[in-house]
């Protein structure tokens, strides 16, 4: 079952198409990475998923409910943290959560439980105005967890956290994912996304430019890296002639061969037989960060 489904979702502000015919699905129990450079349209998409922004065209369906028609039915099963944490500075952390619990008809006992989850119990009675950025971030996560949601939308959850706090939140997301909840994670920490998400979608200038299984996407960028003595032209020509090589590119003194890493030894043998001196050879792996940069920069 799809927990999130967008169908040709569009949002236009004046002349600018901020979200451009976005169609994507997020399945139940998935940890889904929603990526893109600043201004790509991620937050606007999230806002449409939460019924805060009205689509110009298309549909946003969350937990089976059209967000234009039945937002209440969906939102009582959704927890969200969007961009920067927003709280009433004159109220304590616990009272801020109480306001949200009251507004959402959520049992007030959940306040203490969620404060425990994000380890804020000791400062719960202090005014939010006295909180550090990291504490506000945790409180925002607590607010998202308040309704014990089936779907959690987290927009930059580790923003402003120190390394220890980041690891803590990452572990928290892992444990939430382990409990069968669906998580939509927006983050510029691509290392974090790579560790946590099974699937990702990458947006740029409102358009979906890549989507799929993380492992498959990264395999797309894998290949064999070769360095040879002297002019690489003859090596490039030889590699091009192989039918299982999808492409060959030269980056400085390195030849990147678009071929399965399992063929590394075979490539080495063929080059040596052709009297080409191989000085370095190995499988080239791509991180999500490299993949993200390659797709987002390639499109510009």
């Amino acid at each position, binding site marked *: 079952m799809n927990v999130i489904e967008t169908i040709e979702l569009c949002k236009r502000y004046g002349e600018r198409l901020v979200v451009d015919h976005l169609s994507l699905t997020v399945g139940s129990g998935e940890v889904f990475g929603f990526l893109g450079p600043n201004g790509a349209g991620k937050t606007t998409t999230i*806002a449409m998923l939460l019924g*805060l*922004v009205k689509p110009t065209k298309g549909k946003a369906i969350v937990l089976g409910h059209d967000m234009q028609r039945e937002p209440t039915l969906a939102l009582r099963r959704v927890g969200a943290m*969007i961009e920067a944490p927003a*709280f009433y500075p004159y109220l304590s952390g616990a009272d801020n959560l109480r306001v*949200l619990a*009251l507004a959402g008809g959520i049992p007030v006992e959940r306040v203490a439980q969620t404060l425990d989850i994000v380890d804020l119990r000791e400062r719960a009675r202090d005014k939010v105005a006295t909180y550090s950025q990291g504490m506000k971030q945790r409180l925002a996560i607590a607010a998202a967890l308040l309704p014990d949601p089936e779907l959690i939308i987290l927009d930059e959850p580790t923003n402003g956290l120190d390394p220890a706090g980041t690891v803590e939140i990452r572990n928290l997301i892992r444990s939430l994912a382990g409990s069968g909840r669906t998580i939509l994670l927006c983050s510029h920490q691509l290392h974090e996304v790579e560790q946590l998400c099974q699937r990702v979608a990458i947006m740029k200038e409102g358009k979906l430019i890549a989507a799929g299984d993380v492992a498959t996407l990264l395999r797309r960028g894998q290949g064999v890296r070769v360095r040879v003595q002297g002019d690489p032209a003859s090596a490039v020509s030889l590699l091009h002639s192989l039918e299982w090589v999808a492409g060959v590119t030269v980056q400085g003194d390195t030849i990147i061969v678009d071929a399965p890493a399992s063929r590394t030894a075979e490539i080495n043998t063929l080059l040596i037989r052709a009297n080409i001196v191989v000085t370095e050879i190995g499988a080239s792996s791509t991180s999500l960060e490299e993949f993200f940069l390659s797709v987002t920069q390639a499109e510009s």
Partner: protein
Amino acid sequence: MDTGAIFINLLAAEWMKISRRPMALLLLGIFLTLTMLQQTLWFLVVALQEGFFSGSGTTFGILSAAALEQVKRQLSLPGVFGAMLSAINGTGGILAIILTAGLFGSDFNWGTLRVLLTRAPSRGAYLLAKLTALQLALLVAMVITLIVGTLLSLFFSAILGLPQQADISAFLLLPLGMLRSLLVLVPYTLIAAASAIVGRSVIAGVGGGLIFLVFDVSAGSLNTISAVDPMIRVLVNLLLQPNIDRLIVDNSQMFGLDQSVLTGALDRNLLPSSWQAISVIVVYSVIFGYSAYRTLKRQDIGGAN
């Protein structure tokens, strides 16, 4: 969860926010201080005019005899009720605009509206709950003002030896007076709410509310010029101010005051009828309230600004 339960939950949340907000307490403090200063001034005027401080019988002719009598009534029961309710509709109106703009605008400024609407997405219920909580807060402020004002007037009138003429009927009329005063504040709070929503900020709410107030009071004051053309008077009487003045006069008279002695603008003969006053205030409130609702309903809700 049914609509009623959603509204009650939201009302409880809004009440929690407003009752703990330092700004609300500060505005109440300012209003009480101003009201007490006003009463102290009345006390001084009566004391000086009647030679209370000189002991030698020297008096100051500050006010006419009728005006002095009026001020004395404002310091004694039941006139103090009418005087306090007039103050609530005067200075209190400005403070109510500031409070309303603060309540609505800060939800945009802090980005808290976005968070709240992810928990309770009915924007109509949010608006209604916030306005109801605001009216409840104004009612509480009104009760506090009446208590403080009455106690202070009892103190001053005891010093001055003024007679108290309060019977049970004056106290029974108080709820009606309070309701009238609250009705007078409703259009001001709604224009401030609509302005804050349209401008998505506190400053827009305060600006919109006060600009309307200044325009309305200025244009409405044309009514006090007796030479004004009757046709123009009819049009001027469709503005809020003359109608608000009418309810203030009704409240004052109910507690034995005749404020036209002190202020020409409150001459009953120049003002519209009570029914017109109520109808015009309700129409303005509906227009402002609907504008606020329609704007909020159609708005895309962003983060903090």
